[in-house]
């Protein structure tokens, strides 16, 4: 739809959406997180943004919905529809290496495995510490400050840190 009247192009929409940060992890944006699945612009300029929740109960989702609408309406969109699709379910496999590096620089250990990897009971897996890069670490809790993270402690640099769970 590029150049067709006043409509915003799909490319421009993706660009605008990538300016919306995750409210809990502001170094990454919602397109990097894999929340935005599809952008559709119909012949009348009506925009539909298809999104998927990271975790079913993630409170950030309501913030995302508001911000997506506001961002597009502020930038010339006349009508924005949000559609939520649960399938395929969100996975950390959609995070690129660039995104994972951003998480690490921010102090959050990025997901290290594939979502389909089996984790048994009392797993003795050690996550690499995002601060000192060693893996003498210990799981403190499978659950953290947001649904997507678990709590860890580094036995070498004695820093607590969060791990973006493989999901």
């Amino acid at each position, binding site marked *: 739809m590029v150049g067709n009247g006043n409509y915003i192009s799909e490319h421009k929409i993706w660009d605008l959406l990538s300016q919306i940060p995750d409210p809990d992890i502001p170094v990454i944006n919602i397109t990097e997180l894999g929340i935005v699945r599809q952008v559709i612009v119909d012949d009348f300029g009506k925009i539909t943004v298809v999104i998927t*929740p990271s*975790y*079913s*109960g*993630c*409170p950030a989702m309501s913030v995302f919905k508001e911000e997506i609408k506001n961002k597009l309406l502020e930038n010339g969109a006349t009508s924005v529809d949000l559609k939520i*699709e*649960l*399938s*395929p*379910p*969100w996975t950390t496999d959609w995070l690129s290496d660039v995104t994972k590096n951003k998480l690490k620089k921010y102090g959050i250990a990025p997901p290290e495995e594939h*979502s389909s990897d089996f*984790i048994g*009971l*009392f797993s003795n897996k050690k996550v690499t510490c995002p601060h000192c890069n060693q893996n003498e670490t210990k799981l*403190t*809790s*499978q*659950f*953290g*400050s947001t*649904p997507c993270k678990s*709590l860890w402690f580094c036995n070498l640099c004695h820093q607590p840190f969060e791990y973006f769970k493989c*999901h």
Partner: protein
Amino acid sequence: MNTKDALIKYCTRLADNNLILGQRLAEWCSRGPILEEDLAMTNISLDLFGEAESIYEYISTLTDNHLSADDIAFLRSEREYSNTLLVELPNGDFAYTMAKQFLYASFAKLLYTSLLNSNDETLKGLSEKALKEVKYHIRHSSEWLIRFGNGTSESKTRVQNALNDIWKYTDDMFEMDEVDNELISTGIAFDLKDIYTQWNFSVSEILKEAKLTKPSNGLSIKGGYKGIHTEHLGHILTEMQYLQRAHPGAKW
């Protein structure tokens, strides 16, 4: 019963299980035995609320009564709730809560796994999503059962007493009626007898590892799917629905 009505009832049972268990777990907020467990229980509660909301939203697309997910959650009375009895039981101590979580999560995991083969695309998608979260829930509670069972005599006694007490409510999870029969015949849902066999096996495995005794089947209390509840559900709804009842239509 036609397929659509059966599907609405089936989904309501599933969503009510999630909502009521989520509400129960949320009661632990700020009361957990340690900070990490406080976080764990409220995180699991949040997952359950999210799963309930998605299912209520699906239900509202199936009905013509224009009720929103919030209306369904906050404006029904006790007899209209069709959750299984186990999820409404009071929390008791931490061991009691973990025993409940373990028995329910083991059921939920198998139920959602079966629904991956459902020919209702939405139910299948919801299950695919929920299953990823339930895996954390079952790992969390299984590990606690094993720790309690192999811990001190106090922890072992408490968790064993909890299992003995809760066991009579477990049969209710596997109750079936014309709703299930209709959905089984149309390939939307599956026979809970098969799920019971798998549940019995997986629960036994963890109890063995925890050196706990599986309670024997004796008294069994049922009725949740039919809206016949223990005295506890009314109290949960009183607290959960207070705001919407006192200030109808109030928005967050």
